[in-house]
């Protein structure tokens, strides 16, 4: 069956199913994002994103009219949400890495000090 064989109502049904699938995937990704970085700022990023997206869909779908602007804004905000999430994750890990480096330096200094003391005692 090709698309030309489908009636108007069948096409509409297919489109609404596709829309639901895409929305489901989007919500699934947001939930995944929420759980992956479920602390502080990353959690906020995971929560604020869908709220903005939902609001935009709501205001741009009044009366059942869906414009290409909806999809543009949806994809834009999707990118912003994921970009922000990844940035927060990067920032958290960078701080942790810096702390590890500082701690390793201290441990190295301690080892050197103890070695020096052992040599002096000999």
């Amino acid at each position: 069956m090709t698309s030309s064989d489908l009636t108007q109502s069948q096409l509409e049904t297919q489109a609404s199913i596709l829309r639901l699938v895409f929305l489901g995937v989007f919500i699934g990704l947001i939930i995944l994002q929420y759980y992956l970085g479920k602390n502080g700022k990353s959690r906020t990023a995971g929560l604020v994103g869908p709220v903005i997206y939902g609001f935009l869909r709501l205001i741009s779908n009044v009366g059942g009219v869906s414009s290409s602007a909806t999809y543009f804004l949806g994809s834009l905000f999707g990118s912003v949400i994921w970009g922000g999430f990844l940035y927060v994750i990067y920032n958290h890990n960078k701080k942790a890495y810096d702390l590890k480096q500082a701690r390793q330096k201290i441990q190295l200094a301690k080892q050197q000090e103890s070695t020096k003391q052992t040599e002096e005692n000999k």
Partner: protein
Amino acid sequence: MADEVMIKNPTYFGIVCPKCGSDDWRVVRTKGSLEAAALNTVDEYMITPLKARCRACHRAFKVVPVEADESEVLSQPATLVAHRVSRITGIVVPNYILVNGVISDSIANGEEIQIELRTKHVYIQMFDASMTGSATFERFEVQPGETVKRDMRIKARWRSF
């Protein structure tokens, strides 16, 4: 940081709630402690005042670790083996271990780290990456040279109050 002080053996032992006198309180916010942790030296720790909340009367107050007295300091350092339980929740973000009011180290998902303990009474707490949401917290006592193992896990709530 105007309140920064360097001390050798920080401890929370003996600090009570200013309102009800209970020693059952916990740190709820560790703003500035991560920056302070980067300034630690070989012998001394940089300490900062942290926000704590009494679990008995729910009063919030500032808490600063004090220098442990001689009877409190261990003759031989003990070791804390902290293990962060591997979970999908917060898998991509590091957490931090607060020992006696000082951020000791970062801990990744499923990682196991060793921390030197210098005082008899120990206060440990695991914080999330934003240093506000708290996870496991515990007080316990150690003997000189003892090795203590603790499983730390992140909680799914903002606060445990």
